[in-house]
């Protein structure tokens, strides 16, 4: 594979993937270990691995209401994300994933890894239900609706009525 960046520079990425909610800890462990293998095999570096536990999903994914979130942050080159995502697709336990580039050009030496940052990969802790309140279901809050929904149409109409010579954005700025 072609290397665009010289080896002393790398890109920083993060990936989140969601595992089947019934995955046992050994599955989680093996998937995490496999990710680390891939990253190191492609001369990347795993910076951080987190298990966010079993959380409620904001919408059903493959008919699951919950999923186990795993977060990885790593350094790598252009092929590492491609290879990781190829594996994400191949692993049945992974129901969804997302990779994001955080930084274009970093010096790997400037990103030291503490052992504890990636310790979860080897020692998976059972904290599945504790993560519950982190993502509460979005409920219909009256206060929210008053603030964000109800006033919206009125505000828009006022703007349209009174400002013929500018668009909404200008109006917004002029009030400041």
């Amino acid at each position, binding site marked *: 594979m072609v290397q665009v960046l010289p080896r002393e520079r790398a890109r920083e990425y993060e990936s*989140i993937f*969601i595992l089947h909610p019934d995955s046992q800890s050994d599955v989680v462990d093996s998937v995490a270990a496999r990710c680390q293998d891939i990253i190191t095999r492609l001369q990347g570096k795993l910076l951080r691995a987190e298990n966010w536990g079993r959380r409620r*999903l*904001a*919408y059903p*994914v493959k008919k699951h209401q919950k*999923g186990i979130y795993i*977060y990885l942050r790593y350094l790598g080159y252009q092929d590492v994300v491609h290879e990781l995502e190829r594996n994400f697709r191949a692993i049945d336990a992974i129901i*969804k*994933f*997302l990779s*994001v580039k955080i930084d274009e050009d970093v010096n790997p030496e400037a990103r030291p890894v503490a052992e504890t940052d990636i310790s979860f990969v080897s020692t998976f802790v059972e904290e599945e239900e504790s993560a519950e309140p*982190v*993502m509460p*279901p*979005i*409920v*219909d*809050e009256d206060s*929210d*609706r008053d*603030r*964000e*929904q109800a*006033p*919206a149409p009125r*505000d828009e109409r*006022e*703007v349209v*009525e*009174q400002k*013929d010579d500018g668009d*909404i*954005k200008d*109006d*917004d700025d002029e*009030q*400041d």
Partner: protein
Amino acid sequence: MNGTTTGKKPRKPSRRRRVCKFCADKEFGIDYKDPQSIRYFLSDRGKIVPRRISGACAKHQRQLCVAIKRARNIALMPFTAPK
């Protein structure tokens, strides 16, 4: 004919928040991984609140949009109103 409904009424500006929340508080980052921090900018139908309502500045509204879309992608935030 002092019509109050014509275009020239001196509007008492119905100001909501005129200050961008993220400009006001530099500590307050926009992170798609922390849906709690950006939930305020989603309506109860799950839509992104326009910045003329939320008061976010253009720069932060752009960042917010990206963050919300990422959060939606990985099921941390809803695309549509939860039933």
